[in-house]
Structure formats: C-alpha cells, structure tokens
C-alpha cells in the first residue's frame, strides 16, 4: 500500500481536488495535498458508494430480481442481469442449465463484453493513447501509428452496435429485456437472427485484432513511458476454468500475487464471503475489499482485463491467446502492472469476445429450443458471480420461504478495484506531479489513470446539468482559489 494514502501532517499543505461528478447519486473526486514546493503528500480517490441497491432489491420476489437489477446500472445492465440470474438459478433449484440456455447466456455476455470494451477503446483509450498526453516526444511518435488506423472511430461505433444487436437478439429488447430467467432463458435465437449476426462476425474479429495491433504499436513507440505510467505491483483476481482458462461467464475464483505466484485457485464463488473481507476507511464511502488471509495491508488486489489475462493460464481462443503471449513476453514470465496496459489487455479480451461469439454462433446448440433445465431442490441462499467488463461482480442473496429476497449484498467491479485505483493515481501523482507546477496537462495524467479503469460511478441516472469533472484548487486555509469544470461533452465550463 502506498505511503501517500495519509500525509504525516496537514499543516502548510495545499489541497487540489479533481471532482468528476457524474449523474446524481454517484460521483468520484480526487484530492491531492501539496506543500508550497508542489511536493505530493497525500492522494485519495473518493467514490460515492452504491447506496440504496439493497433496499431496492430486498422485499421483491426472487424471480423478479434478474430484471430489476438491470436498472441499477445503465452501462452494465447485462452483467447485473446475468450475475443475479446465476444466483437465482440456485435459489429456484436449477443446478444445471441446458446447453442451449447456457450458450445463449454466454452469447449475451460476450456481446456485452465486446460492446463495452469497444466503447472504452474508441471513447477513452484511443484518444488517451493518441492524444491524451501533451509531451512532444509522445505526440511525434504516435502520429505515424495513428495514420495507419484512420477508421478507428467508425469501427468503434459499429463494434458497439454489433454487441448491442447480440444483446437485443438474446434478451428480446434493446433495453429492459428479460432473456435469462431462473433455470434458463425465455427466448430462442432464430436461424435468421443467427445468420444476421454471422454475416458481420469476421469483420468484427478483424477490427478487434487491428485494435490490439494499434495498442501494441503505440506501446512500442515509447515502452519506457507506456509500460510504467501508473505502475504499482498488486495481487490480481478473476474467474478461471478448472483447466486454468480465462473464464468470463462462470468458473471459480483464482488469485495470483504481484509476481504471478498462485494465492488461491478454484475456490467456489459461494465461498467468497470467507475468502474476502471489506474494510471501511473514514475518508470514503466505498469499501476496500481484500483477501482475508493476507490482511488489509497486503491482501488488496485488482480485477478487470489486466488482472484477468494474467491470472489465467491461457485464453481459450487462438487469436487472443497469441496476443496474450505477445503481451506477456516483455515481463519474462512475470505479470506486468502499468496502468495503461489495461487498454492493451482490454482489447485482447475484446478479440477473445469476438472469437467466442463466432464459435457460439457456429454451434448448433445456439438455435436449440430446449431452454429450461430440470428443477431440483430449492435453496434459500445463493451467490452469483460473473466477470463484468470492468471486473469481478458478486451478487449474494437470501430468500425467505415466502419467495421474497430478505438479504442482498453486491460487490461491484469498481469496489474490487478501489485500492488499485487509489494506488494508480498515487503512482501518477508521485511520478508526474510531485515537484512541478500543477498544470491542466499534468492533472490530465490523473484523469488518464482513472479512465484506464473506467470506474462505475453509479451512473444509472444521467440528468443533464451535472458536471462530470470538477477540479478545485484549495489553499492550506481551505479557501477555494480556483475551479475548473467539464461537462459530458468534455467541454470546459
């Protein structure tokens, strides 16, 4: 854990707050305490916890939960839908899905992964990698690379659209779809729908592969910068198949330490509560999960693409696995921890998602009509875990004899990454801000680190008028001496 979490003394320190307020309920803010010589003494990322989720769900019939949880998050409704229904399968007594039902759920999930990663790449990663840094050497080096990829923006939109079409065909609607229900799914994929999706899948795979190539080439222009920006060693956690393959829909929990050594493997998801512990800190609403046996100081971890592709032994699709090996090579067998490497890992996963979608569409089971499993003994408690685009997502429920949810606990990806995000911005502040005059360009470096994680900020609401980014400069006496704000268009206000 970084020494920059708490300053030794607050006297004679200047406070810089970067306040990315988003929507209504959730928001995040970065505070940096500097002394008169601009040396960094304390850096903290505060993200407002997801309040009200449990109250929204408790008291509802269990079969309704997979639908209503989609309203928790406007950006990852499919992830909440599938994590909830996996738990409710168990509650309802369905312990094995039919092959068609499981493959349709996987198709929906990989469609979500593809579209989410594509949005991130087009909207956040490629502008950051291509334009996000103001240093001349970086700009000069990337111009030639960028010229080779003139179609990035259009491809990003069409990749997103393709993923959304998969979700529409598997859940029935563009939003508010049902799709997965306890015990299976309630909609088949017709042959016509499958053929429509097959028409474009090879193009999508090609674009995803090109995107991996773009990130790889950009890193090659200046590896000394891209590889170490926001770098910090950490444990990593994700789901893995019994054979060690990357698994995004199902599987068991696995964690490695910063050097790649296994901490635990194949722990059933239902045991998460005994494996993980959530620590509360007085300066933020969001909890800090950590591996219970290692303690809070040594047991925190990161989740998401960079953790997943290094926690698994291999990716079970050939093109993505080839790219994973290339990605791992510079580490010489050890994991890599630079924050900007999240972008590279994310596009390897996008390629894996596209390959998996192709394989699922080619599978005869995908147009099957046997949608519901056999019902067995019901249970009163269950845990559903899925690898959401941003990382591991836990849904834990207890249901009474009256079928109503009596307990609900969610650990979302952003909470799992809470300590890691704090460490990332501390690393950036230490390396790039400390000792320098704080300029907008330097503060952008902090934003770049936040964007790499793309944290969820409880964004299921979106009222116009909210300012997603606010930077406050506050002097040692607490007086506001400057403010910059930015809206959802990225315009300063």
């Amino acid at each position, binding site marked *: 854990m970084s020494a920059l979490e708490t300053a030794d003394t607050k006297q004679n320190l200047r406070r810089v707050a970067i306040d990315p307020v988003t929507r209504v309920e959730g928001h995040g803010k970065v505070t940096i305490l500097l002394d008169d010589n601009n040396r960094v003494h304390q850096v903290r990322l505060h993200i407002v916890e997801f309040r009200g989720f449990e109250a929204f769900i408790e008291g509802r019939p269990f079969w309704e939960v997979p639908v209503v949880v989609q309203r928790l998050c406007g950006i990852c409704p499919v992830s909440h839908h599938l994590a909830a229904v996996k738990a409710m399968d168990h509650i309802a007594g369905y312990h094995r899905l039919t092959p068609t039902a499981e493959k349709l759920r996987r198709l929906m999930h990989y469609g979500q992964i593809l579209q989410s990663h594509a949005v991130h790449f087009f909207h956040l990663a490629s502008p950051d990698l291509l334009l996000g840094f103001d240093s001349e050497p970086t700009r000069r080096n990337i111009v030639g690379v960028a010229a080779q990829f003139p179609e990035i923006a259009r491809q990003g939109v069409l990749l997103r659209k393709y993923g959304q079409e998969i979700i529409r065909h598997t859940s029935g609607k563009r939003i508010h779809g049902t799709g997965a229900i306890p015990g299976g799914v309630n909609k088949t994929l017709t042959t016509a729908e499958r053929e429509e999706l097959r028409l474009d899948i090879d193009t999508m795979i090609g674009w995803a592969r090109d995107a991996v190539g773009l990130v790889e080439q950009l890193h090659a222009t200046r590896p000394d910068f891209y590889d170490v920006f926001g770098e910090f060693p950490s444990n990593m956690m994700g789901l893995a198949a019994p054979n060690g393959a990357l698994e995004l829909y199902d599987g068991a929990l696995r964690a490695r330490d910063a050097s790649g050594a296994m901490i635990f493997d194949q722990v059933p998801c239902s045991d998460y509560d005994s494996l993980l512990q959530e620590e509360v800190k007085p300066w933020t609403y969001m909890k800090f999960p950590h591996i219970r046996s290692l303690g809070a100081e040594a047991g925190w971890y990161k989740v998401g693409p960079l953790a997943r592709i290094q926690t698994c032994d291999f990716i079970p699709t050939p093109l993505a696995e080839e790219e994973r090996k290339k990605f791992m090579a510079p580490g010489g067998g050890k994991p890599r921890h630079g924050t900007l490497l999240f972008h590279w890992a994310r596009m390897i996963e996008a390629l894996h998602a596209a390959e998996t979608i192709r394989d699922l569409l080619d599978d005869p089971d995908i147009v099957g009509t046997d949608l519901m499993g056999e019902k067995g003994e019901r249970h009163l408690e269950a845990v559903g875990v899925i690898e959401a685009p941003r990382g591991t997502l836990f849904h834990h429920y207890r249901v009474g004899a009256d079928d109503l949810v009596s307990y609900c606990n969610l650990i979302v990806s952003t909470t799992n990454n809470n300590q890691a995000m704090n460490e990332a911005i501390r690393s950036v502040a230490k390396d790039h801000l400390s000792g320098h005059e704080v300029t907008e360009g330097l503060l952008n470096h902090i*934003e770049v680190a936040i964007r790499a994680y793309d944290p969820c900020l409880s964004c299921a609401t979106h009222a116009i008028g909210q300012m997603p980014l606010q930077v406050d400069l506050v002097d040692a006496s607490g007086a506001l001496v400057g403010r910059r704000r930015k809206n959802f268009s990225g315009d300063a206000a």
Partner: protein
Amino acid sequence: MKLVVFGWGNVSRGDDGLGPLLLARIAEARWADASLIEDFQLQLEHALDLQGADLALFLDAGKNTPAPFAFTEIHARHGMTHTSHALAPEAVLGVYEKTMGGRPPPSFLLCVRGESFDLGEGLSAAGAARLEQSWAFLEALERARGPLEWRARTE
C-alpha cells in the same frame, strides 16, 4: 419530415424517468414518420440512429435546468470526459460528424427539470406536473414540425 426522438433515463430513479415517460406519450400518440429510441444512457451507437433523419429531438431530465423545462437547439461538440458510461447529446452529434462524415440533422433538446433522482422512487409531485407541461409543449411542437418552426420556440 423524418424525425428521430431519443428519450433516455431510468424510470426507477424518480424524475430521471421524465425522458422515457415523454417518449412513451409520443408512442401512444403515434406521431407519424418518427423513430423513437429509448435507453438508459446516450451512447456511441445512437449516432447511427440519426442517419436518414431530417430532424432530431432529445428528451431528458435536468437537475439544474430552469423550471419547468428548457428547449434549446444543440450542436456537435468534440471533447473528452473521464468516463465511457454516458454521452451528452452534443457528444452524440459529435460522434455522428466524426464517423459519418457529414453534418447531423438539426437537433433540439427538451430538458425537463427534475427534483428527485433516488433509486426506487417514482416521479416527484413537481416532476409529474412538469411532465404534463412539457407534454403540452411537445404536442405544440408536433403541430409545427420543422427546424425553422422549432428554432423559433427555443430560448
């Protein structure tokens, strides 16, 4: 004149549902030659929904919007935010320019002031009243559909 209408928000978060609720009113009234798009958030692919439209209307709730609502013409903006979770309507127009290689259709935003946005809440009393006021305004817009006519009604 082909119209595309976006109504976005979360009906499970109080007044955040004003956009989708207005969109539902339009669907019920069966406006002719209008495509209706509902979503939780505006995103990149909504730029594709602008293709072929002569006019675009965005319906949303606003936290600091002057009551009861504001009606403005909007234009493409290009810029970066800290998140990929949502786009502003101006950013969707910017994506259209960047990816389609042309100017988006004339676009207008009707932003209704909301008061309460908590999860699990219904419309606030003020939100419900403004829903009726803004619906009356939308009906008037529909009676004179066109960029010049709508521009004359902007603030």
